[in-house]
Each structure stands twice: as structure tokens, then as C-alpha cells.
């Protein structure tokens, strides 16, 4: 890597931008960088020719506080100070594998941010990740802006992903950036604003058909749109047929439909466990290491998990028919998990970057399920833009809140909610953010009333997806459920969150009924104030369709 320019974005001047532009000859490749003016800042685009492992476009001076972001759903999105140390538990590195980073070789001993960084007065981010992996390496007093190509050969001039520099405060730059990304990736946001139920945070893998039927029965008055069965139903990771705890998938879906709900199902389509039949039958469908052996992507379920090579045509056919089959069975909501597996480094059938391979796999699923709802999880964020309807944007939640636990993507309601706040700006623009499930039960949980309430309020005020995960025969916090129903009576909300850099979050959330405020002064201790702007007018809306197909919306005052 050669020398690139270091600019000072806190004391910005136009000449600095011109220093970045121009032609450079690097080791093995040539690079042309051009700069374009943009509202609030600049667009930086490169053109490459030759063999490229990695490009450093420029560097900038590190500010005292920097919002950094991890590449995938579960990873932390948080503000770091100059003295920040990652301190990733050594004993967990192997288990986490690529889950922590697309570049584990660099991640555990450095401070990296994927896709974007933000400070009090500027923002630098990449508009797409279609071929390269855009990231920032933060070293001492400098931040290096890089595109990782994992060793690609470009015979012709090839346009790079676009970087933007935006000069304003984060409550302006973050949503603005999100919108630029949506435009770059042609996002059509789903109008399916569903409220649902999931089995996971109540039953985990201890879930079966009888429990499903019992909760369906208890869910009668809840008025969900979706009822989703989570990890528990399959024979093995990779063998996506029902185990002996469940009847046929047609029957499962039909049962859910009987109650008027849209059937939803969980699976990890790019993951293949060492014990699965798929692993035995098709080692040729897996991503390999340098020696040609299947590469372990991560460990979970006490097993080694390998990654599907989504560039093998037969593997893609298998993926396609798997999802077509699930759709034929009656499922219209797919929670697809551990997606990062398709983006691990390694040898593949086609000579593409891990990012390109991931997108090929995700696109195959999108095509197979057509207009069904796809909820991504454990997914590289930027490459998924435009392919999913919903996306988990934090680690798993949990029936406990541990502000002292490790911030590495482990299940923890505290860090899950922290990410819901720090990634608020992409909601409703890249997809609908999934803040992870609400647990509204008052028993069988260590969450306090305040923690349960804050989690619910943040999810509602930020206008995120709402999925409940409770055994419905338990005592449920009905007061909170009423709040959920009230917030979901109308369409979209307009939301602004300020205070990310200070950690004193202020949410203004506006809807038809008014503008509600939520101030979180101490997230660790769950200290917050909520003020609901009810007003005196309660308008009841009723919709009638005329014979000629015209819609009439009536608004009547409800005293």
C-alpha cells in the first residue's frame, strides 16, 4: 500500500479535497480518484485497473469521539474514545470466526469500523458494498479509508464503490447518508408493517408443534399479522426438513393460517453443520480454505459450521428450490439467519469477492420468495440493502440486561437496545429495523418493569418492527401491549434521534396523534423520561371501499 493523503475534517478546507483527487500508480494497480460536490459534502469515486487486494483512498485525522460500526447485524455500533481497547475475549475468537468480522485476520488486534464512521461534525461512509468491503482502520491519530477487494484482477478500468464525506452533525448526516445509500442501491421499502410473534425468546430450541398450537390458541385476541416459528423445527443446520417434533411444513403453515396469521419460518440458509446430510453429500458446495478443505465459518449448536458456496450453480439451485418449497408450503415470512456465512473469505467455484458471493446467494433467495417478507439476521449490512424487507440491527436480546457484559454480539438486552439506538437512522430507509423481540411476560424473565418498558418504547418510537416472543399463557404486561396497539394503529412515523455521541439519547417520534418524546439519560441504568403528546382530539378513522373501487377515509371524533 502506498502513501495517501491525510486530511483534517474537523478543520475542513476545500483544498484538502483536491489533494485526494488524481492519478496514482500503486503496487500492481493504477488508481484514479475523482471528487464531486454533493449537498453537505463530497462524493469520492475511484477507478481501478490491475491486481488489487486493497485500496487506501485517503486518511483523515482521528477525532476524540468516533461512532464506529460493525459489518453485520449483531456487531456493535458505538461511540469510541481515543483510549478505546477492543479486548475481545481470546477464548471466543475461534468460536466467533467470521461472525465478528469479514477480516478476522485484522479485526481482533485493531480498531476497525465497517461501512461508515461519524463524529460530532463530520461523517465518512460508503454508499454500497457490491464488490469491495469498505472499512476504516483507526490507528493512533489517523483513520484510513479503505476498500478491500480480497485479491481481484481488473483487466479494464473498474469503478469503485462511492465514498461520501458529509460535514454536519450526526442527526443530520446519519439519516442523510442512509438515504443516499438507499438511492444508490434502488431500495423499494416494503409497505408490510407487520406485528408478529416468534417462538425464540421463550422456548429457544425447546419448542414443538404442541407448544405452537397452544400459543396460537392463546394468541386469539392479540391481532398479530405474522406468527413465526424459530430455530427448533429442522433436522439439522443444512437439512431443512421438519424433525420429529413437528408434522409436515404444509400442516404447520396451514395451522397458523387457520388463526388468520401469516406463517413465518426461521432458517440459516448459508450454514451447513458438520453433522448434516448436506455436508456429507456435498462437500463440493462449501467454501474452502487455501488447502482445498471446507473452511469453518463459525461454531454454534456445539458444532462446526461451514459456509455454502453461493457461486456453485447446483448449490444455488438447491437454495432456490428450498425457498420455493417453503413458499409452496404456505410460508410468506422468512427469517434468514447467520447470513454472514456466505461472505466469509475463501476459495469459491467462481472467482468473485466474498461480498459478490454473498449478494448472489441473497439474490437467489429474494427471487425464489418473490414478494414474501424477508427478515435478515446475522447479516453483512451494506451488501444486503435492497434485498431484504427487514433486518436485525443488533445482537440477540435476552431475558436479562447486563451493562457489564462483553460488547461483542452476545445475547444481552442492554447491547441489543444500544444498537437499536445507534442504528436508528437506517430504519424505514434501507429496510425496517428489527430491534429483536419484545418480551412482555412478567414471569420467567430477569428484565425489570423499567427495562421492559424502555425496550418497548424505543422500538415503538423509532418505528421499528414489532415481534413479541412470549409463552402467551404466562402473565403478560398488558399495559405495554396496549401501548403497542395504540402506536401501530396508524402508518409510518417521523423520527429524529439526537445525542448519539454523548449517549444521552433524545427521541422525537411524530405520528398522527402528536409528537412523543423519550429521553434516555442513562441507558446502563435504564433511566429515562417519556412524554406522550396525546392532545384533546381523538380521531377514529374508518375506511370504506365504494363499488367503483374508490376508497373513502372517514374521520370521526371520538369523545
Amino acid at each position, binding site marked *: 500500500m502506498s502513501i495517501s493523503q491525510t486530511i483534517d475534517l474537523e478543520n475542513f478546507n476545500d483544498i484538502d479535497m483536491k489533494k485526494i483527487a488524481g492519478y496514482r500508480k500503486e503496487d500492481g494497480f493504477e488508481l484514479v480518484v475523482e471528487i464531486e460536490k454533493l449537498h*453537505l459534502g463530497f462524493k469520492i469515486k475511484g477507478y481501478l485497473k490491475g491486481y488489487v487486494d486493497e485500496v487506501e483512498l485517503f486518511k483523515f485525522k482521528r477525532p476524540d469521539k468516533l461512532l464506529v460500526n460493525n459489518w453485520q447485524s449483531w456487531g456493535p455500533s458505538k461511540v469510541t474514545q481515543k483510549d478505546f481497547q477492543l479486548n475481545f475475549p481470546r477464548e471466543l475468537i475461534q468460536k466467533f470466526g467470521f461472525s465478528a468480522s469479514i477480516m478476522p485476520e485484522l479485526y481482533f488486534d485493531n480498531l476497525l469500523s465497517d461501512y461508515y464512521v461519524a463524529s460530532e461534525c463530520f461523517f465518512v461512509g460508503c454508499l454500497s458494498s457490491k464488490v469491495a468491503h469498505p472499512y476504516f482502520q483507526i490507528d493512533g491519530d489517523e483513520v484510513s479509508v479503505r476498500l478491500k477487494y480480497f485479491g481481484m484482477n481488473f483487466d479494464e478500468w473498474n469503478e469503485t464503490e462511492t465514498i461520501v464525506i458529509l460535514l454536519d452533525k450526526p442527526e443530520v448526516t446519519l439519516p*442523510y447518508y442512509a*438515504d443516499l445509500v438507499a438511492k444508490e442501491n434502488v431500495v423499494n421499502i416494503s*409497505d408490510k408493517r407487520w406485528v408478529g410473534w416468534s417462538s425464540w425468546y421463550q422456548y429457544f430450541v425447546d419448542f414443538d408443534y404442541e407448544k405452537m398450537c397452544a400459543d396460537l390458541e392463546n394468541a386469539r385476541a392479540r391481532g398479530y399479522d405474522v406468527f413465526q416459528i424459530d430455530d427448533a423445527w429442522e433436522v439439522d443446520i443444512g437439512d431443512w426438513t421438519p424433525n420429529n417434533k413437528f408434522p409436515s411444513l404444509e400442516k404447520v403453515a396451514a395451522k397458523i393460517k387457520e388463526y388468520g396469521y401469516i406463517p413465518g419460518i426461521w432458517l440459516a440458509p448459508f450454514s451447513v453443520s458438520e453433522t448434516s446430510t448436506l455436508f456429507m453429500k456435498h462437500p463440493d458446495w462449501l467454501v474452502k480454505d487455501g488447502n482445498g478443505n471446507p473452511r469453518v465459518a463459525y461454531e454454534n449448536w456445539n458444532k462446526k459450521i461451514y459456509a455454502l458456496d453461493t457461486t456453485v450453480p447446483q448449490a444455488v439451485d438447491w437454495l432456490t428450490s428450498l425457498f420455493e418449497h417453503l413458499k409452496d408450503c404456505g410460508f410468506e415470512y422468512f427469517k434468514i439467519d447467520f447470513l454472514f456465512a456466505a461472505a466469509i473469505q475463501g476459495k469459491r467455484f467462481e472467482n468473485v469477492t466474498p461480498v459478490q458471493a454473498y449478494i448472489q446467494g441473497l439474490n437467489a433467495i429474494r427471487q425464489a420468495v418473490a414478494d414474501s417478507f424477508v427478515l435478515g439476521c446475522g447479516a453483512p449490512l451494506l451488501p444486503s440493502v435492497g434485498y431484504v424487507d427487514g433486518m436485525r440491527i443488533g445482537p440477540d436480546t435476552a431475558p436479562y440486561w447486563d451493562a457489564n457484559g462483553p460488547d461483542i454480539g452476545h445475547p444481552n438486552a442492554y447491547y441489543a437496545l444500544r444498537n437499536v439506538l445507534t442504528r436508528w437512522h437506517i430504519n424505514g430507509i434501507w429496510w425496517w429495523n428489527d430491534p429483536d423481540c419484545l418480551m412482555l411476560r412478567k414471569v420467567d424473565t430477569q428484565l425489570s418493569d423499567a427495562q421492559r418498558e424502555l425496550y418497548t418504547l424505543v422500538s415503538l418510537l423509532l418505528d421499528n418492527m414489532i415481534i413479541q416472543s412470549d409463552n402467551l399463557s404466562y402473565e403478560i404486561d398488558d399495559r405495554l401491549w396496549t401501548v403497542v396497539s395504540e402506536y401501530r394503529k396508524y402508518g409510518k412515523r417521523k423520527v429524529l434521534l439526537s445525542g448519539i455521541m454523548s449517549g444521552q439519547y433524545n427521541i422525537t417520534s411524530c*405520528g*398522527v396523534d*402528536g409528537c412523543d418524546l423519550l429521553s434516555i439519560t442513562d441507558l446502563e441504568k435504564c433511566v429515562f423520561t417519556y412524554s406522550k403528546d396525546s392532545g384533546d382530539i381523538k380521531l377514529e378513522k374508518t375506511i370504506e371501499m365504494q363499488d367503483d373501487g374508490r376508497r373513502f377515509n*372517514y374521520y370521526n*371524533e371520538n369523545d
Partner: protein
Amino acid sequence: MMERRYNVLADEWVMISAFTQQRPTNPTTSCPLCVGGDEFSRPYDLASFDNRFPSMKVDAPNVESENSLYKKARSNGKCEVVVYTVDHNSAMSLMPIHQIEKLIKMWADRYLELSLQPTMKYIFIFENRGSEVGATLSHPHGQLYAFPFLPKRIEAKVQSLAKYYDEHGRCAICDVVENEVSIRERLVYENESFIALVPFYARWPYEVHVYPKRHVSSLVELNNSERNLLSKVLKVVTMKYDLLFQQSFPYMMMLFQSPVNDIRYEHAFHFHIEFNPVKRDKNKIKWMASVETGTWAFINPKLPEEAAAELRSVEVII
């Protein structure tokens, strides 16, 4: 025939809507918005419904461009009739504040609901009042156009507000509000949250703009007490208009909110309402003629500061 056609001379879209030709002009028979009329068989409070003669429809037919010179696009927007009250003889100036507050809430719901469709780019809420501006029904109502594209003048507003923000690091309307509140000569009415003024750059003789003092990009972001104060402004401005020449005053009222499904300019786009009245005097109309239509350049025969003084001096009690 319902489609959009692209004008290469002006970089703008034209909505072709051949159905609108069958639209009734000043029907003399019963009012379709009254109970028992064509649209409502039973009593209601407020309503917003799909126009019987729309120029855009969500399920508008697919179209194909003839070639790169003659581009076409779908008119997949929405046209709604927004009925303020069941009372035929009312008007914004006559309605109780409470009813206007309900109207604001209905506007907020229409804005949010329609913005949920990713194809919508701009929700334009407006009222044509009086036959002088082409209103065919006297029943108090407005309309709403949900556009699948950004209309030309909206684009101009967005671009100039963004340009001002880039140059000054502030919202232009926030700066105008601050300035007008201090000099006061163009103010028509003021309360804690809003100003109504004849703007420095008024194009029409008695043009009035309403600006929230706080930066919001849409009326949805107004809280309930601000919505109450906005209904007072709307009532005061329309009452002053009616009292100015002691006649039902014809105007175009237009709500300018930031584009939907595009939040890039929300920090720069300040929600505002424009009243464009066509009267220059009791019996004189200011026409939108060749210069205004052909060049977009307006000649205002009235000094804005004088118009403001006249409107300010019209006393109203709310």
C-alpha cells in the same frame, strides 16, 4: 388516457388525463359533498376520498416510452378530495378552531399513510377556493395530490433551500422567521409557534405565507399544542381575507412539506403554507398571464409591506 409525458424543452413532466374533460363545471344541481349528494349517503365529520375524476391513480396503466425523445411514465399517484366538514355553508374562515385541528390531524394521517407507498415522492395538500381559481364546488373542501415524481417548483424549492443550507449552514426559512419577527413590518399575525406574513418575495398582491417558528419539515412533526396554534393561524388569515374586501375571498392555499421517501433535505426544508390569492382589489383580478406562465417571473403590483399593513389592520376575533 392517463399517463405522464416528459417535456425535453423544460425538463418537466406533464400529466395527461383525458378523463378530466368529463368533469362537471360548476354543477348547479345538488352538492355532491353534502349528505345525500353523489358522494355521501350518510352523515360524516371529515373525510378524504379518491377523486372521481383523478389525473393519477395508484393502479394507473403501464406505459412505454415511444422513444428517447418522447418519454412516458406511469401516472401512479393519487388524487383525493379532502372534505373539511359536513356543513355546506362553512369555510376555513367560518369553521371552529376545533374543526381545523381535526383537519390538521387528517392531513397528517393522509401524509403518513400515503408516504408508506414507496412510489410516492411528494404529497401536495391544497385548497382552491372560489370560482376565480377554478373551484367547482363551494362545499368546504381541499384536495391532495400524491405525486410519483417531484414536481418542478417543488424541486426548485428543495434545491434552493439545500443551496442556502450549504452556503450558510442554516435553514433559509429559519433565518427568514428570525428576521421577520425582529423587523415586523411584513407580519400579518404571530403567535407562540407561527408567523403569518406577506413575504419579502411575494408574487401575488395579498400573498400570505405561514411559517412555523421551530424547524419542522412536515406538519406531522408539529405537536398538539402547535397544531392548535396552526389552526388559529389558518382561521385568522382566512378571516382577514374575507374581511379585507367584505367578500368571500378567493385563494389557493398550498401546504409545502418535505418530499416523502427521501429524507435527504429534511434539515433544509422548512414546512410552510402559501396562500396565493388572485385579487388585487375588490373587483380586480391579478391574472396568471403570459409573463407569469411563460417565464415563471411574477410582477407584483402591490408593495408587500403595504399589503401586510392592510391585512394586519383587519381586526379579527377568534
